[in-house]
C-alpha cells in the first residue's frame, strides 16, 4: 500500500501560488487576429480545394496549436521546433499504432501516451500533438485512408502554414516577437 500523508496531500490540493495576471486588449487582439488567419488559411485550403479529394488540410488539434502559437507565443510549447516536431512525431506514432493495434481503446491510449513520451524525448513537447496522435486512431475514415500520408498532409503542411502565419502576425505586432528560438 502507498503511504499517504493526508495533511501534505490536502496542502498540495490547495495549490501554492496565485494565478498569473491577465493580458491587455492589444494582446487579446493579436491573439484573435493570428488565430483567425492561421485557422482560416488551413480551413480555406481544406474546404475550397481538398473537400472533393481524399485529402484534408485541417484537423482538430490545429485549434489547440492556435492557442499556443498565437496566444502564448513565449511558451516553449509554442516554438517552431515544438509545433512542427510535436505534430509530426505524434502523427507518425498515431498512424503506426492505428495500423498495428486493432483494439481502439488500447490504440488510443498507446498512441497518446507514446506521442507524449516521444515528444518529451525529442524536446518537442506540444500539447496538441497528443490530439494529433489520437485523431490518427479515432479519426474519420478519410483520415484512416490517408495512412502515413497523414503525417505530411494535413499534419506537417498544415502546421507549416500555421507557422508561417504566426511568423508574420506575431512579428508585425509592436510588442511581440516570435519565435524565441528555432532549434
Amino acid at each position: 500500500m502507498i503511504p499517504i500523508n493526508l495533511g501534505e496531500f490536502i496542502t498540495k490540493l490547495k495549490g501554492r501560488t496565485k494565478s498569473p495576471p491577465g493580458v491587455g486588449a492589444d494582446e487579446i487582439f493579436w491573439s484573435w487576429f493570428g488565430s483567425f488567419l492561421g485557422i482560416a488559411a488551413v480551413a480555406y485550403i481544406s474546404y475550397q480545394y481538398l473537400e472533393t479529394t481524399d485529402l484534408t488540410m485541417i484537423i482538430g488539434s490545429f485549434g489547440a496549436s492556435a492557442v499556443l502559437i498565437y496566444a502564448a507565443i513565449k511558451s516553449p510549447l509554442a516554438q517552431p521546433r515544438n509545433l512542427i516536431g510535436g505534430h509530426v512525431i505524434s502523427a507518425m506514432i498515431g498512424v503506426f499504432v492505428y495500423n498495428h493495434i486493432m483494439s481502439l481503446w488500447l490504440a488510443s491510449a498507446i498512441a497518446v501516451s507514446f506521442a507524449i513520451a516521444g515528444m518529451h524525448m525529442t524536446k518537442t513537447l506540444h500539447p496538441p500533438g497528443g490530439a494529433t496522435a489520437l485523431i490518427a486512431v479515432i479519426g474519420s475514415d478519410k483520415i484512416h485512408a490517408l495512412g502515413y500520408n497523414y503525417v505530411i498532409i494535413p499534419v506537417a503542411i498544415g502546421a507549416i502554414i500555421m507557422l508561417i502565419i504566426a511568423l508574420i502576425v506575431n512579428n508585425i505586432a509592436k510588442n511581440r516577437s516570435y519565435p524565441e528560438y528555432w532549434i
Partner: protein
Amino acid sequence: MLQEPTEEDFIEALRDMHQYMDVTPGDLKKIYSLALEHARKRMVSPKVGDIMTETVIKSGGESTLDEAVGLFREHHISGMPVVDRDNKVLGVITETDIISVLTGKPRSSLFDIMNVFHSKKQRSVLYVKDLMTSPAITVMPDSTVVEVADIFRKRGINRVPVVDEHNTLVGIVSRADIVKVYEKVRS
C-alpha cells in the same frame, strides 16, 4: 538593502511583460531563487586558475629518490608532480609513496621507518619514476574550487597538479589554497 522579490513583485513583473507568460508567479519565484543560488555559487567559487600556485616545485622521472627528498626538505613540501622533458605530467610523488617503498608497507609506523634508516643493508639507487603514483589526478585551470575540494575529499589527497588541455603542467593547487579561498569568502 534590497529585499528578495515577493510573489506580488513577480505578478507585477509578469504584468509588465504585456503578454501571456506560460509560468505561474510561484514557479517564477522559485526559478529566480535557484538562478540566484547558482550565481552566488559561481561568485564564491573561483576557478582553479585564479588560486593555483604557478611556480611549481617538480621532479623529473629520472631524478633519484635522494634528489626528490632533497627538494621536499628544501622547500618544506610533502609531495610534487613528476614531469617529462616537455613538462607533461607523468605522476605525483609524495612522502607517503617514498616511505611505502622503503618500508615495503602501504602504511608504515615510525618504528618501520626508523628500522629502514638503521638498516645496514645497501640500498640500490631508486628513481622517482619507480616510486611515483601514476597516472596523476589532475585538474584544469577552469575547474571550480568546489570541484577541486570535492576531489581532495573523495581521493584523500592534499594537492593536485593543474594541467592544460595537452597535459602540460601549468600550476598546482593544495588544500591550503582552498582554505585561503574559504577564509576570503567568510571575511
